[in-house]
């Protein structure tokens, strides 16, 4: 198997446990679009054009609740604004890609393949990042398109009482744990976690998440700066 192909397959494989959480999430998104008074064409269009789960559910739900269009749009964009930070963060790792591929690599970026590259892919010597990332995306994309369509056509075929949507935070937790290797990283997790717990229910338009993320980033940068100065003083 060529190195590119091996990398692509590794990306697909690393998504397999994650897909258990993506599938019920996709069903919910499909159901949300139908509940907003829209049809199968809108469900397919939204999953293809937007391809960002949480924002699709938020936008469709607000639209269905007769919120002003600009409120639904702005809230969904705030939900997705973390992807600007992901894109800035992952850019150096995919900078081998030719210029024409970059707009497509951007389109492919979601939480799951970002997290897989940053917590697993970039530490492996046996793969190239770009095909690994595209492989992870292809698995996510296929399951997302199929499950949102199934949700739109059949409703939520997995009973909500099973709580399979909880697989999403569980998998992110599994990816987080190996990154907690030093005191600063643990501090960043605590600061971000406390901020998210307090701010998410409090702040409007789902902006608590992004404020918590920025707070954690700032804390980490501050601790690193202090540590560097202490190191220099010694």
């Amino acid at each position, binding site marked *: 198997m060529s190195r590119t192909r091996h990398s692509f397959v590794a990306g697909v494989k690393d998504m397999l446990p994650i897909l258990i959480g993506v599938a019920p999430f996709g069903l919910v998104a499909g159901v949300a679009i139908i509940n907003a008074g829209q049809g199968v064409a809108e469900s397919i269009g939204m999953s293809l*054009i937007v391809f960002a789960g949480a924002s699709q559910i938020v936008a469709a739900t607000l639209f269905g609740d007769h919120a002003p269009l600009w409120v639904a749009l702005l809230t969904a964009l705030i939900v997705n604004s973390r992807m*600007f930070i992901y894109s800035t963060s992952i*850019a150096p790792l995919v900078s081998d890609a030719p210029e024409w591929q970059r707009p497509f690599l951007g389109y492919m970026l979601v939480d799951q393949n970002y997290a897989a590259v940053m917590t697993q892919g970039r530490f492996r010597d046996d793969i190239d990042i770009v095909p690994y990332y595209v492989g992870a995306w292809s698995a996510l994309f296929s399951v997302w398109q199929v499950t949102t369509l199934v949700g739109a056509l059949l409703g939520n075929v997995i009973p909500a009482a099973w*709580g399979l949507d909880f697989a999403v935070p569980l998998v992110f937790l599994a990816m987080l744990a190996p990154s907690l290797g030093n005191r600063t990283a643990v501090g960043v997790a605590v600061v*971000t976690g406390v901020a998210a717990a307090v701010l998410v229910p409090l702040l409007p338009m789902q902006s608590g998440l992004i404020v918590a993320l920025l707070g954690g980033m700032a804390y980490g940068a501050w601790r690193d700066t202090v540590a560097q100065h202490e190191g220099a003083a010694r």
Partner: protein
Amino acid sequence: MSATAQFWLLIVVLGAGTWAMRSVPIMLHGHVPHPPWLERLLRYVPVAALTALVVPGSLYLKANGAYHAVPARTIAAVVALVIALRTKNTVATLVGGMAVLWVAQWALALVG
């Protein structure tokens, strides 16, 4: 404008805005300066982002626009964190966390 036309407008503008946010930094890399302070600020993005994705879903469920505490999920998340730190294994964390969630839901239903 019909509701369907409005929804398509929402899809297209949201799609374009989201694409711009996720693509522009990748497209501009190497064409704009990448100062050390930015590097430092970005270093803990994976840890902060993953935490921000885990915590709300482990504490709350949103129903009818309001956040409700879900103790069964919180208990399951704490056990899953211990499993994740011990095993560093995604499947073990997923299976363990879901199993604890189901047991905790059943036990809390008996109590409550």
